[in-house]
């Protein structure tokens, strides 16, 4: 009687939209987009960004939602239903999602670590621990900054390179465990629990971002950052990498190709109006990126101004102490004039301190652009230590990071579990047990990222685990579904009206061409770049040093890419062989 059990569904279309928003709006909106904006000409970057949104972002998003809603199965089942030879596309999605799940929750673990450490009177990353004789800070902390020391030494306990390794960092392991336990709590009952959680994970980050926006723009020097960001440098538009970065950012920000969108929309009702929902979610995602970058740049401006003023202060102190001038003679405003004056009147004494005289440049401070974990955990935490009531802002900020990361994790894990559940082999297992097994499996493998060299492996997964494979997968999706399968007639069936000419043009020509161009660019870049490199933290210098990957690292990178991409031809071959045998009576669904 239970064989034909109805597929679980979202309680309402609102839950579906919120789930998609929660998945798409993630850490990349906060730490990648502002960096790109800064690198590629500030306000001018919005032009290629919004153009790419309409040329490839929205059409591809719409396409994935259509596939899921029509097939009502996860990625593997959906693609196998389209054609048994294409089951590999779904499998490649699942493999890529698995890699993502392994390393993404580590970031949530770090967010937990920082969040818990914010409940102290003095934030631990604001001061250096003292050396043995208590006269000065620890050396590593002195050459770097306290925030860098806290991240690289106390949080990661990072090794000098990827070859050196050690034991698991207990604190990190505990935080990773908590991250997975929380993920399990959110998905334990499948869509029923996910649907309720997304009300919170999708909306609360916006509240925090708004609070931070108000705090940010009222900070001293925030205006410097915002004007720097929004002054468009139109000459950057002539640079092809601006357009390529815009295209890749849109692509990865929407989370296409992982199978999460297919999984989410497979729980929709057949006639759900996903056309409107696709446009809404894509626009919300891009809008959030722009919103987050305003906040980031306000904070950047504050931090740069503080650093600049500290630099001026140090210079002032140096001049006062060397030339024994009274305290109120030199102020921050006329420091630089005094430098000139003293250089001309006392050239000999000035030459003695010349190596200690720093050049203080506000624009240079503003142009030090950082992205990724460095921005989130080092730059932002440093800015927070300078704010009044820093513990409160710290708690709010890391809680927001946690929600953004958890929201994306929901989509990542659902992308793995939904296809597995669709297999008849596993349909007998209870939902909770299956979810638990997947979570434990990912947790155990993810513990490898908590070792001293774990951060280097994390970077490797982040840079190579999903980038090339996704472009490949989505290109396959677009070409097969629009040309071979003919999705257009099914959309008419689901929505009640045929797709607009806009969609047809995009699927038919523009988006595939863009994807091919991106793929070619990636391949060229990889070949031209020589040996892949990573940033290794050097303890003595107190900064990151560019190092080449060793041979086993490069082999692993190749494995990462090949393992997901090769699923497509291998499954096609397998299906072909099964078809050839006369006894082939395989039933896939």
């Amino acid at each position: 009687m239970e064989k034909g059990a109805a597929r679980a569904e979202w309680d309402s279309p609102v839950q579906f939209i919120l789930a998609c928003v929660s998945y798409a709006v993630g850490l990349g909106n906060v730490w990648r987009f502002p960096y790109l904006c800064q690198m590629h000409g500030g306000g001018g970057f919005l032009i290629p960004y919004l153009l790419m949104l309409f040329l490839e972002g929205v059409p591809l998003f719409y396409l994935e939602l259509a596939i899921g809603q029509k097939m009502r199965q996860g990625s593997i089942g959906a693609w196998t239903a389209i054609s048994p030879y294409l089951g590999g596309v779904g499998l490649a999605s699942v493999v890529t999602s698995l890699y993502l799940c392994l390393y993404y929750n580590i970031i949530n673990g770090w967010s937990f670590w920082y969040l818990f450490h914010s409940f102290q009177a003095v934030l631990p990353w604001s001061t250096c621990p003292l050396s043995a004789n208590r006269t000065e800070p620890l050396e590593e902390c002195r050459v770097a900054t306290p925030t860098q020391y806290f991240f690289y030494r106390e949080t990661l306990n990072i090794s000098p390179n990827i070859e050196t390794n050690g034991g698991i960092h207990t604190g990190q392991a505990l935080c990773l465990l908590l991250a997975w336990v929380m993920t399990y709590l959110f998905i334990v009952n499948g869509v029923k629990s996910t649907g309720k959680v997304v009300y919170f994970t999708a909306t609360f980050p916006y509240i925090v971002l708004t609070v931070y926006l108000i705090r940010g723009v009222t900070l001293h020097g925030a205006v410097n950052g915002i004007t720097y960001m929004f002054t468009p440098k139109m000459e950057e538009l002539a640079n092809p990498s601006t357009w390529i970065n815009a295209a890749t950012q849109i692509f990865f920000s929407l989370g296409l190709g992982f199978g999460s969108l297919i999984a989410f929309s497979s729980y929709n009702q057949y006639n759900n109006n996903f056309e409107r929902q696709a446009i809404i979610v894509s626009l919300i995602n891009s809008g959030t990126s722009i919103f987050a970058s305003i906040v980031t740049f306000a904070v950047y401006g504050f931090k740069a101004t503080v650093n600049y003023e500290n630099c001026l202060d140090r210079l002032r102190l140096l001049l006062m102490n060397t030339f024994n001038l009274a305290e109120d003679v030199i102020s921050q405003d006329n420091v630089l004039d005094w430098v000139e004056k003293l250089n001309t009147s006392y050239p000999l004494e000035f030459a003695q301190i010349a190596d200690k005289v720093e050049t203080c440049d506000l624009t240079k401070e503003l142009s030090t652009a950082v992205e990724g974990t460095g921005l989130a955990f080092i730059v932002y935490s440093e800015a927070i230590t300078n704010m009044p009531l820093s513990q409160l802002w710290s708690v709010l900020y890391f809680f927001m990071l946690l929600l953004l990361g958890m929201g994306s994790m929901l989509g990542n894990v659902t992308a793995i579990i939904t296809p597995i559940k669709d297999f008849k082999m596993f349909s007998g297992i209870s939902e909770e047990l299956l979810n638990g097994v997947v979570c434990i499996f990912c947790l155990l493998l993810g513990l490898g990222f908590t070792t001293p060299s774990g951060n280097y492996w994390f970077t490797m997964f982040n840079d190579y685990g999903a980038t090339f494979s996704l472009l490949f997968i989505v290109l396959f999706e677009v070409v097969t579904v629009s040309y071979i399968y003919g999705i257009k007639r099914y959309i008419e069936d689901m929505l009640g009206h045929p797709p607009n000419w806009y969609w047809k043009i995009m699927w038919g020509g523009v988006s595939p061409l863009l994807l091919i161009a991106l793929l070619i660019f990636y391949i060229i870049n990889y070949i031209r770049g020589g040996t892949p490199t990573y940033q290794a933290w050097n303890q003595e210098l107190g900064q990151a040093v560019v190092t080449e990957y060793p041979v086993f690292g490069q082999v692993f990178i190749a494995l990462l890419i090949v393992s997901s991409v090769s699923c497509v031809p291998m499954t096609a071959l397998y299906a072909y062989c099964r078809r050839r045998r006369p006894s082939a009576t395989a039933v896939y669904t």
Partner: protein
Amino acid sequence: MLEKLLILLFASNVLAQVCMPDAPEAYKVRLSIKTALGDQAYTWNDNELYLFRATLAFAMRNYLSGQLFDVSNILVCNETERVSFWFMVKSVTNPTTLIEKQHVENAIKESRHRINSAFLLTDQTLEFLGILPTLASPFVPATPPWLIAFGVVMGVVGAGIVYFLVAAVVQRKRKKTLDEEEEAKGATENEIAGENLDGIYNTSFSDDEKVTEM
């Protein structure tokens, strides 16, 4: 008159001879009053300098107990408008010798806090060049506070999971017993009570005529 001049000359001679910057027993002091106190800053004048010499004498008395240092034992020279100067300490027992640097350093380190407080300054704004302040070691609680927060959150999440799992198991069991009851009831419902399953032939509707009438 002449005596006063001679005394002044003698005194300044002594000072000029003994107190020299960069001497092996001399320390340089630097005060940053405006940085520390802002609007509340007091102006540095001879009276403040006298207080300084008195606090230093106090520090030396505390360190070398028994020897009664006085303001006259502290020699000061090379004052600048930065508010920095050099000082040296003359011995009590032998007025022509100077106290060694190490003793002065230890004395100052012991009474550093008192010296700072006398001037409303801190280790960073009242600098003795060459004497590094002993930084206060940070307070380390027995249990790291982050573990406490971690324990709370882990407990809540764990309780949530247990609740959901138990609820799911209970629901499933309830459904199973409901199904079983339905099956048991359904078997008797579908049977018709009675032995004659074909029904009773009602003769009132049958016609004896074998041939239908037109």
